[in-house]
């Protein structure tokens, strides 16, 4: 039993790290642009397929795929921003329309991956040596530990970026007060494009890690990650990057512990229930002030 719990904690941290990254990128995007990216999960899975292709056709190991994915997804996000967002903000009801549009983007992305890779589940047949490492009394796969280390590094980097650099501070300022930041003379369009690109890059990188940590993925896995991202973002408080990081880890832990103690199906329902419950009971998230909206 204790071993199971210990296992649950270690896996919870690993999975939670990934959830934290999925959530933090979505929350950055929401914070700056006030749009909810329904396609976020698909972007993540696109990152997994990206690593898959690099590995199977060019023999690039996943660790090397990370920076390549970061750069490619950043560029793709930057381009996508200018295709999608400027027109959107001119519409009657930008909020409603943004839901619809990203819904369409998510269908498009899933369909593209389906066309390219068919519906079968894929996995990257790459292993580290040694395959697993002993942590206290339990064995953990090296790939998962590496992924954990990488999520920790990325999270720390992101926090440093947001709190110590000028563009990072501008992003946070834009989240808190989008009008004021324009008055101060920041080019909000460029900043938004940057936020979109950054979020997309993070999604892509997270996808590579997903391919390392989880046994398989397919064209339709995206929805799962979108939902997880929603859960994390809502738990952490909409537009609160630090909240999302913490909430991601907490949710990962909760989910892995739930799979220890509950049947699989119930564990899944727990996730949805946490989401619904949080929105009703603490709409500003676990760490927000209790005022509504």
């Amino acid at each position: 039993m204790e071993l199971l719990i210990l296992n649950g904690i270690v896996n919870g941290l690993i999975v939670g790290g990934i959830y934290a990254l999925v959530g933090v990128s979505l929350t950055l995007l929401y914070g700056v642009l006030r749009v909810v990216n329904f396609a976020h999960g698909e972007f993540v899975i696109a990152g997994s397929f990206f690593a898959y292709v690099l590995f199977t056709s060019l023999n690039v190991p996943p660790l090397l795929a990370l920076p390549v994915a970061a750069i490619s997804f950043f560029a793709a996000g930057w381009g996508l921003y200018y295709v999608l967002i400027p027109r959107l903000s001119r519409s009657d009801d930008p909020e409603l329309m943004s839901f619809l549009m990203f819904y369409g983007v998510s269908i498009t992305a899933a369909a593209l991956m389906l066309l390219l890779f068919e519906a079968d589940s894929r996995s990257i047949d790459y292993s580290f040596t040694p395959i697993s490492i002993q942590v206290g009394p339990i064995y953990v796969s090296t790939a998962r530990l590496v992924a954990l280390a990488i999520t920790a590094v990325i999270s720390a980097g992101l926090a440093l970026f947001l709190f110590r650099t000028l563009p990072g501070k501008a992003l946070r300022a834009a989240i808190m007060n989008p009008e004021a930041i324009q008055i101060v003379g920041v080019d909000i369009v460029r900043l938004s494009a940057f936020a979109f690109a950054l979020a997309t890059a993070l999604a892509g990188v997270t996808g590579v890690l997903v391919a390392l940590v989880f046994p398989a993925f397919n064209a339709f896995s995206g929805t799962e990650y979108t939902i997880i991202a929603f859960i994390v973002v809502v738990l952490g408080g909409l537009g609160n990057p630090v909240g999302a990081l913490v909430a991601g880890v907490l949710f990962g832990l909760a989910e892995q512990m739930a799979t220890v103690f509950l049947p699989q199906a119930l564990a899944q329902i727990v996730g949805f229930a946490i989401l619904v419950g949080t929105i009703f009971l603490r709409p500003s998230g676990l760490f927000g002030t209790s005022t509504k909206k």
Partner: protein
Amino acid sequence: MMPVSSRPQDSADRIYFTLVALIGGALMIYFALVPVFGLNVAFHFYLMLWITMASAFNVSSGFSGYLPFGYVAFYGIGAFTTAILVKKAAFPVFLALPFSGVAGLVLALLFAPTLRLSGIYFGIVSLALAGICRLVITNMPEEITGGSFGLQLGSRAHPVQSFYVMMAVMVVALATILWLSRSRLGKALRATRDDADAAEMMGINVPRVRLYGWMIAAFFPAVCGGVEAWYTNVVDTETAFNTLITAKTVIYAVAGGLGTVTGPIIGAVAMVWLDELIWRQFPLLNLLILGVATVALVLFLPRGIVGSILRRKPQWRRYVP
């Protein structure tokens, strides 16, 4: 006696009801004759289903201002209600179908607290609740829901009968929405959509009005699910709770234009026809084109077909149902 000033209103009403009669009559005659002339029953069955789904969705989105991304939950519950009653309780189909509608209403009541939420929160919660519904049904004992194989309704399929039942459902749905669009409830819903607080201070019982709208929006997809289960003779959680059902409903309604009665009809007709065309030519591209079409619609035709026309010609608003 009516004063002179109300004459223009009368003549506008005349045009309006003439249009209603023309569009409604044409739709009904056309669909009624489909099996008679041996046209493609399956295609037209689904066309009517999507017209109904998109129109009912319009009550939630166009009239009430909610975007339920878990709309499929009502459809799925309806499908399983009919299937379980027919298969496990040996109900005749005609008796089972009303229970599908009731199941939709019950689910709507269960979800009623979500109407307090707005915008993104409502959308996300709706999606999550649909996920919960799917998981609950998937994990119910196999004797009830048939587990992952789903339920076969047996030899009770009767395509032409179910076609006409679908048609009846569509007609009732459109009549209801036509009534709603002119009724006081409809005005209260629209006012609530535009500014809930202001509407409440004008004496509108906002929670109640929203609940009524929500129940209308939930009833019809549930019945649709039941009829479709009967038509295809099989239900399983993968198809009955498929998010693509929500996607298509939303897209068809938006394509035509939310907020008018004709919008979702025209949107569904145009898009189902387009879908069929594309499906025949490039079966693999179907999903991709659906996605791209959605993005394109939002970017280039955000008010939908009917909405864009009325934007250009505001004076037509009074004449177009």
